[in-house]
């Protein structure tokens, strides 16, 4: 499922860091990496020597991965999303860079754009899980995964990816709005508990420990709260088209990516295609 990964890189990427990321990806089942660089229009480095890319590729090859190097141009996030489709990548891996909040507000961030545009699952690597050291081998079996679902079609699609992590603990979190009256609320609560129970049963063969929880509130706020409360490494969620009124606030996924310390795997809904 994560056999071929597209890894976007920019000039100045640290070789050692990429090598650690390669180890992690290999641990998650990757065998082939497409190292992709986008020449930004007007970039100072455009058309110059790209030997640094070869050095990065070598670093990944040292981990035991097959690497091919590709370059493209145009709007960065769009070019990455397009390349992932053309290359037939199973996912896109990005290491989130720290940026000043004001800068993100003014310029937007590539990872946020990519989350909105990509038709391929995107893994945004944040502070957790920590990348393995040189001497240490990654241990995906220790991962704690939070699977955020609203139990509809968009949220069912990430389930195979959740299974793929095969971590130590999977916490299934369902967040929804409260129903409009107590009777409907009670019926809904029972139905949700039943469905979460079924999802948890499905996941039990892949994880040592599976728990589930239903909460009422704003999805982004609750996912961030729970993820921080129990110190999850990865949050897996599906992407849905944002409702009209939520657009100025940002889609739930974007808000989670911005606020989360855990890494995010965002799986787009099939048919939720961007025309970009």
């Amino acid at each position, binding site marked *: 499922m994560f056999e071929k990964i597209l890894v976007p890189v920019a000039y100045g990427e640290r070789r050692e860091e990429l090598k650690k990321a390669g180890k992690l990806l290999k641990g998650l089942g990757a065998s082939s990496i497409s190292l992709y660089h986008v020449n930004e229009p007007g970039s100072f480095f455009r058309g110059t020597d790209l030997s640094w890319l070869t050095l990065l590729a070598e670093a990944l090859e040292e981990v035991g991965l097959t690497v091919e190097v590709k370059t493209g141009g145009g709007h960065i996030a769009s070019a990455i999303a397009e390349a992932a489709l053309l290359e037939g990548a199973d996912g896109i891996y990005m290491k989130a860079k720290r940026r000043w909040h004001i800068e993100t507000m003014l310029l937007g961030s590539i990872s946020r754009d990519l989350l909105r545009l990509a038709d391929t699952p995107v893994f945004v690597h944040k502070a957790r899980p920590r990348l393995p050291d040189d001497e240490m081998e990654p241990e995906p079996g220790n991962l704690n995964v939070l699977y955020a679902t609203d139990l509809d079609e968009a949220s069912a699609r990430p389930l195979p990816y959740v299974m793929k992590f095969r971590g130590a603990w999977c916490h299934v979190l369902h967040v929804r*709005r*409260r*129903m*409009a*009256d*107590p*009777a*409907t*609320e009670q019926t809904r609560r029972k139905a949700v508990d039943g469905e979460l129970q079924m999802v948890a049963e499905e996941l039990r063969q892949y994880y040592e420990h599976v728990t589930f929880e239903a909460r*009422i509130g704003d999805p982004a706020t609750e996912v961030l709260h729970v993820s921080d409360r129990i110190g999850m490494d990865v949050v897996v969620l599906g992407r849905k088209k944002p409702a009209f009124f939520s657009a100025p606030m940002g889609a739930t996924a974007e808000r989670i990516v911005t606020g989360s310390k855990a890494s995010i795997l965002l799986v787009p809904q099939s048919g939720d295609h961007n025309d970009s």
Partner: protein
Amino acid sequence: MIREYLRREGVFLLSAGIILFFIGFGIVQPDLLDSFSSTVHAAILDNFSWFYLISVFFFLIFVLILAFSRYGTIKLGRDTDKPQYGFFGWVAMLFATGMGIGLLFWGVSEPLVHFLHPPSFIDPASPDAAVFAMRYAFFHWGIHPWAIYSIVGLSIAYFSFRRGMPALISSCFYPILGDGIHGTAGKLVDVLAVFATVFGTATSLGFGALQIHSGLTHLYGISSAISVTIGIILIATALFMASAILGVEKGIQVLSKSNIILAIALLLAIFALGPAPYIFNVFTSTLGGYINNIIDLSLQSYPFAGFEWSRDWTVFYWAWWISWSPFVGLFIARISRGRTIREFVLTVLTVPTLFTFVWFTIFGGSALHLELEEGAGIAAVAGEDVSLALFAFLEHYPFAGILSLAAILLLIVFFVTSADSATVVLGSLTSGGGLVVPNYKKVVWGLSLSAVAIVLLVTGGLDALQVMAITAAFPFMLVMIGLCYTLAIGLSQEKVRE
């Protein structure tokens, strides 16, 4: 045991406690109460008059969007529910809801006062001032008040008839408060509704008592001392309390229906005895101006010239309507079970509004005709004492004595029926939304309404009534914004065909 009682009667005890404290404070320290309420009122107006305008405009847009959206087909009741009343019976009840003390009090005086004291950019007592006066009378009594009532009515009807919850404002907050509607937050919402209803109704009762007194002074030359106004309130209180406690609902209904017939008869008499073509022209041109300028009127606070005018009139009216909204909203919800949201909104916005337009055109238009064409000098009387304007106007008609007596009778009956209904509504709001209200609660609320009206009249007269209406409405306006949100959440959970 006591804990259970406090929990069950929390809304009643808290709201009655606050109102009794207010009455006691007004009796012991009237000057302090006046200065305190004026300070709060000034702070609200200085900082939030724009908020009243934008909120009420939002309420109008919100109900119109609901009516014309796919949610418009949702029934206020179960899908199988049939309307409780036939269409014409329902329309007649809505029509009657639009009538009351306010129409009699302001029907003549409002256009005349605007005509005499428009904002500074309009020449007073000019034809432009007359156009402005009629347009604003239509605006203040037009679809905006009914949009306010619709928000409360729709919310209560939706959450009680369709979602099976008690007919309380707090029930509408279940989507955000959950079981918290039975806790402090829910009780606070209901207390704010009670608070708004008491002051909104007391304001109307105060207006009614002032006008009855003016009419009696005008007709029979009785003393104009405030003690007479208090005496009128006490007599009317005895009447409506007797009706509320003895449970003479049928008697009250007969009285109410007779009063509406008498009001329509008075309206037709003024129309028949007045300049009919002139009145028709006033109606069509004012309606055109109102429709053409409705967005500007809705959001106009005249910040460069006339800001105080807007605060004194438009903001006062919006606050007064908001303070009446739990009362009227509850009533129109109760009679609208089985109607769709579209039917409800469109009928509630148009039927009572058209009637008030006709009322203002006949009374206000005829008064302006007397003023502009015949130099009757009624505007000066209205400028001096708004409660006297109606009787000064009727003096220019044949059978003036009979017409004035009919107007006084109308006012007394409206006073009694409004106060009687308000007592029952307040009782219901403080009894978990039930229709069976214990007598002691009726006594407490009936006496409270009259006592608040008296305290306000004694401490500051007409101004004090307006000040308290605005102050009490402000928190409830925030509750109404919450109602829009929770109604939207509730409706979004409905399965409606696109």
